[in-house]
């Protein structure tokens, strides 16, 4: 998956640079997050601003990242959700699980 990462202290900001998070790219995204966890980075912010479509594979990748971060006493927070993407979190009640912020700055301040 095409993404940009920025390290801000011990926080890693991951900016997704795709319009879709689906069966095509979510497996790769899981591996990209695992590589960060293996480096000991477990405070992640994922900026979903360009994403207009997420399916069950995309949600599964984010849940997997959330579980991995939590298991390492870190956290995975989300920001920049478009309305259609947010509705997917609401439909699956995952909006009660993830901390969701309007912007990366707000997510960063919450750590």
């Amino acid at each position, binding site marked *: 998956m095409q993404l940009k990462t920025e390290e801000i202290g011990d926080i890693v900001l991951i900016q997704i640079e795709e319009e879709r998070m*689906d*069966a*095509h790219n979510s497996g790769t995204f899981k591996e990209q997050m695992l590589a960060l966890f293996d480096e000991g980075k477990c405070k992640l912010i994922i900026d979903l601003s360009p994403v207009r*479509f997420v*399916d*069950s*594979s995309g*949600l*599964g990748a984010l*849940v*997997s990242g*959330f*579980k991995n971060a939590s298991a390492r006493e870190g956290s995975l927070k989300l920001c920049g959700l478009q309305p*259609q993407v947010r509705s997917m979190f609401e*439909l*699956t*009640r995952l909006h009660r*699980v993830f901390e969701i912020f309007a912007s990366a700055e707000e997510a960063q301040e919450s750590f």
Partner: protein
Amino acid sequence: MSRLSLQLAAGLDNLDTLVLFVLEHALRAGLDNKQSHRVELVMEEAAVNVIQHAYGGESGPLDVCCTLTPQGLQISLADQGPPFNPLDAPAVDLSADLTSRKIGGLGIHFMRNMADELDYRREGEQNLLILHFLRHALEGS
């Protein structure tokens, strides 16, 4: 009624072709953006289900047929995998704790909840999934 079919090899590389095909017909059927998003999601989930489970990653045919109806759009999806009725799959427990939730069942959850009607039948050696999307979605759906 207008009816158009697409035959393609089941594979993740062909998903874009399938999605574009059904979205073009969602537009022709006069579905709004919200309904078109549902069409896109449900068809993507249904096709991935066939690719990953019915064919187990092996190649196999996938036939998609779009029919414009007076109420909206009917889409049928046929595969030649082993019999599988998504309507028989257990419901996902969305209230369960995240550690015990099975994310794998979410695709079928979306198919059931976002299509206005979902029917399945086994025809000969084929699984046939028939989905209806109404021009004016049912209230509360």
